[in-house]
Every structure is written in structure tokens, then in C-alpha cells.
């Protein structure tokens, strides 16, 4: 019986191995561990483990799946939750034009679409405040038309229609669809300039995801008003052989019947200089400002200054040491020193 079981297991393994090879399936992972000195206390921690699977199903159809295992206060047992971050079926229509279907990183900003959970790629330890203040919808479940590297300016575009905020991964909560229109150009090597517009109507009574901090601890809250949301974003990214510059900003205009239009502006500027191939000192300035009377977002004006050094161990690992001064309307002033090792495998 035992021998039959082993034989069966071997056959399954061979079948799985061969089918994986036939489809050109790749599995990659990302993780990070850190030590932080904050409020006169040293803490060790690891934030999440990210598993990425890509597969070519046919000559034109491919798959990308990203699943994150992370600490979650609300889950029971080990206190770790599993979240499907991306499931994308991509069909190449013609040339560099693709149709994408599934759950995506909303292509609003450079950081959100380029790095997201891949901390190995982050130029700093944590995300900018813009992405942890619930200003932009980080994910969208829907359908998208995407093109890239078109013409001399290497023009790229994303047109996405999704369920919008308040929906679940399997069902829309209302008849309103979110719309994302994004475009970028790459006029020179290592330079990308982008702009985007996002529109959504969030129904009264909708339950929306709130990110509590950079560890992406989630909390759902109910929206008590119908909100018409318009987001205007712009980004400039240059990652050259020596200099690195990344600047992004989003202007959010939320309209409710009671408060009319309320504006929120969030931006950050990152700059780094490669002293050697492996060592990059850097700094980042962040600011998020909510207009008085804003009721859709949790109003907490914040600003931050970060300086640090990034040591590239190899392409699969880097070590960052960083100091952050953070001013928050709610929590006050904080000084944080962090070290992080981020890996890919």
C-alpha cells in the first residue's frame, strides 16, 4: 500500500513538473524582515510573504497571480491572513495591446503599480504616506485595455473599468463602475512620465477597506454618504545609472451632498544617488493634506522626512537603514529608526 502511495506521488510530481514546464510557469516570492526603534522601544517584525505566480497558457493568453500572507489582527489562530492581491488573465490582442481581466493594482500611480508588495523593489523601507492614507484605491477588480511602448515616445495607456469601492472581489455592491484612465511616456532611457484620472461613485452604506498603516492592516468601515470621487494623479520617475528621482502627487476631489467638493492633496519626492553599484543614500519627503470638512477620508494631515541608505547585497536581497521624522495631526511627532532586509526568491 505504501509503495502504491509513493508511486502515485511520484507520478503526480512528474505530471505537475511537466505541466509546469509546458506552460512556462514561474513561481517567485518576496518577503522582508525589519527592526525598528520607535517610542523608546526596539521591535523586530516581518510584514508579509508575497507569492507571485506567472504562467503562459497559450501564445497569447497568460496568467499572473499574487497572494500575500500577512499579520492580521482580526484573524484567529496564528493571526495571519491570506489575501489574493492580484489575479490577472492577460490576452495579447495585437502587438503591444493587451486585454486584462481580473483583480489588478489600480494603475493610478507609479509606486502602486510598480512596487506594491515587492519590498525588494522599494527604494525606501516603507510606502509613501500617499499610499497608506486611504486616498487612492490600491486594487480594482475589473477589465482593462492596456498598451505600452508605442511610437518614439514609448507611449503607454491603461483604460480600466472596475467594480469600484464598496464592492467585494466577486460582486459589485451597486450599479456604479469605477473608471481609470492612465497614460505615460518614456521619452528617454530610464525616464517615465505619467498622468491618470480615476472616477467612482461610492454608494451610501458601502463598506470600504481602510489601510491602518504600512503593514496594510485592514479595517472595514461603512460610508454614511454617497460620494462622487475624482482623483487626478501625476508622476515622474527616473532611475538612471547614478541618480534616482521619483515624484508623485494625487489630488482627490470628493463630493457629497452635505459637504460639496472637498480636496485632498498627497505627494512625495524621493531622490537617491548611487555612490557605487551597491550603495545608494537617499531621502524622501511626504505630505498629505486634507481640506477641512472632508468626511470620506479620515482627516489626518501628515508630513514626513526620511533619509537612509540602501545596500544592494545582490539582485535578490537588499539591506536598508533609515531614519524617519513623522508629523501627524492625530498621533503627533514621531522619530523612527528602522533597518530592513528585503528579499526575493
Amino acid at each position, binding site marked *: 500500500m505504501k509503495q502504491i502511495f509513493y508511486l502515485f506521488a511520484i507520478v503526480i510530481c512528474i505530471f505537475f513538473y511537466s505541466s509546469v514546464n509546458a506552460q512556462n510557469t514561474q513561481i517567485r516570492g518576496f518577503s522582508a524582515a525589519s527592526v525598528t526603534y520607535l517610542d523608546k522601544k526596539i521591535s523586530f517584525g516581518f510584514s508579509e510573504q508575497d507569492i507571485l505566480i506567472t504562467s503562459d497558457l497559450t501564445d497569447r493568453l497568460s496568467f499572473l497571480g499574487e497572494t500575500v500572507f500577512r499579520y492580521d489582527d482580526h484573524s484567529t489562530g496564528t493571526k495571519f491572513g491570506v489575501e489574493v492581491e492580484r489575479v490577472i488573465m492577460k490576452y495579447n490582442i495585437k502587438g503591444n495591446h493587451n486585454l486584462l481581466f481580473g483583480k489588478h493594482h489600480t494603475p493610478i500611480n507609479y509606486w502602486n*503599480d510598480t512596487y506594491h508588495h515587492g519590498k525588494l*523593489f522599494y527604494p525606501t523601507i516603507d510606502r509613501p504616506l500617499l499610499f497608506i492614507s486611504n486616498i487612492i484605491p490600491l486594487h480594482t477588480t475589473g477589465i482593462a485595455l492596456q498598451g505600452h511602448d508605442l511610437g518614439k515616445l514609448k507611449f503607454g495607456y491603461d483604460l480600466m473599468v472596475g467594480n469600484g469601492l464598496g464592492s467585494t472581489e466577486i460582486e459589485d455592491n451597486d450599479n456604479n463602475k469605477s473608471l481609470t484612465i492612465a497614460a505615460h511616456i518614456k521619452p528617454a532611457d530610464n525616464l517615465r512620465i505619467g498622468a491618470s484620472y480615476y472616477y467612482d461613485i461610492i454608494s451610501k452604506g458601502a463598506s470600504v477597506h481602510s489601510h491602518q498603516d504600512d503593514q496594510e492592516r485592514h479595517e472595514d468601515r461603512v460610508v454614511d454618504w454617497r460620494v462622487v470621487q475624482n482623483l487626478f494623479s501625476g508622476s515622474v520617475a527616473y532611475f538612471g545609472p547614478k541618480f534616482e528621482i521619483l515624484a508623485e502627487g494625487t489630488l482627490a476631489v470628493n463630493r457629497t451632498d452635505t459637504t460639496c467638493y472637498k480636496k485632498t492633496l498627497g505627494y512625495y519626492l524621493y531622490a537617491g544617488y548611487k555612490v557605487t553599484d551597491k550603495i545608494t543614500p537617499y531621502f524622501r519627503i511626504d505630505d498629505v493634506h486634507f481640506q477641512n470638512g472632508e468626511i470620506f477620508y479620515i482627516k489626518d494631515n501628515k508630513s514626513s522626512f526620511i533619509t537612509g541608505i540602501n545596500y*544592494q547585497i545582490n539582485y535578490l536581497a537588499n539591506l536598508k537603514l533609515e531614519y524617519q521624522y513623522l508629523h501627524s495631526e492625530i498621533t503627533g511627532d514621531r522619530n523612527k529608526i528602522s533597518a530592513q532586509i528585503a528579499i526575493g526568491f
Partner: protein
Amino acid sequence: MGNKKTIIYKEPERSIVIKFSMVACLLVMSIIVKCQVETLTIICNSNGAPATMKFTELRSVMKGERQRWNSGAKVVIALMKTSTTVGKNTAQVIYNMSGDALLKYWLGQTYQGNAHAPKFFNTKSELEEYVAENPGAIGVIDPPPANNEVKIVSVDGKTQFIL
């Protein structure tokens, strides 16, 4: 005593000759090796890449910025591993990156879902075989190909990059 003196006198002379010969051999070998790595040749499958390209086009293709050739064949990139001399030269000349930076670039492209990473090979013959067998494949090797089933792509009018 006389014999002993002769032996003592001849021994160092021989060793000097041997050492000199070894140094000369090493020098010749290093020159030969250097001559061998100083060229890069772009090869492709008969279905896919055009016979001539501009360098800017080539770099764009090799960075995964083009999904399909005019024939409709999917672009598939084949490179030597960055631990090999050809792989390092490819990273430097075609991508203007270090080997490590090239690998990180492709890891990033894979993570973003923009493109599939190239196939990396240990030997030239494996790479040539892969390019010959896969429509749309394009690769970089060191000396001109031994496999008759692959085409050479002329870049800016040249069939080889002289480093």
C-alpha cells in the same frame, strides 16, 4: 664537489626558463581569451526578427518593450547567464547595466506583469539550439553561430559588436 657545483648552477636556469615559458603561455592564452570575448553577435529564429535593426530598436526589444514581431511571432529573449563573460558583456553593451542590475530589471518586469524574463543559458550551443527551435526567439552569443538554423541580425549595419 665540481659536479655538485654544476648541478647547483643549472637548476635555477631551468626553473627560470620554465617560469618564463609559463608566463608567456599565460599571456598568449589571456590574449586569445580576450580576443574571443570581444565580440557579440545577435542571432534569431528564421521566423521573427528582421535581418537588420537599429541599436535603439534592439535595446528596446531586449528590454521586453516589444511583444511581437511584424510576422506576429511572440518575442522570446535568450541570453547567456550573467555569470558568464558573454552574459556580463551583453548586460553591459546591450542593456547598459551590470549583470546584477539586469537580473533585478527582469525580476521587476516579471513582478509588474509587463514581460516574461528571458531564458538564461550556460552554454552557447544550448542558446543557439533554443533560438533555432523557438519562433520569435532572439539571442546574444559571443563568436558567430555554429548552428546553421539561426540567422544573424545585422545591427546598425554590423554583424558583430566589437567590444
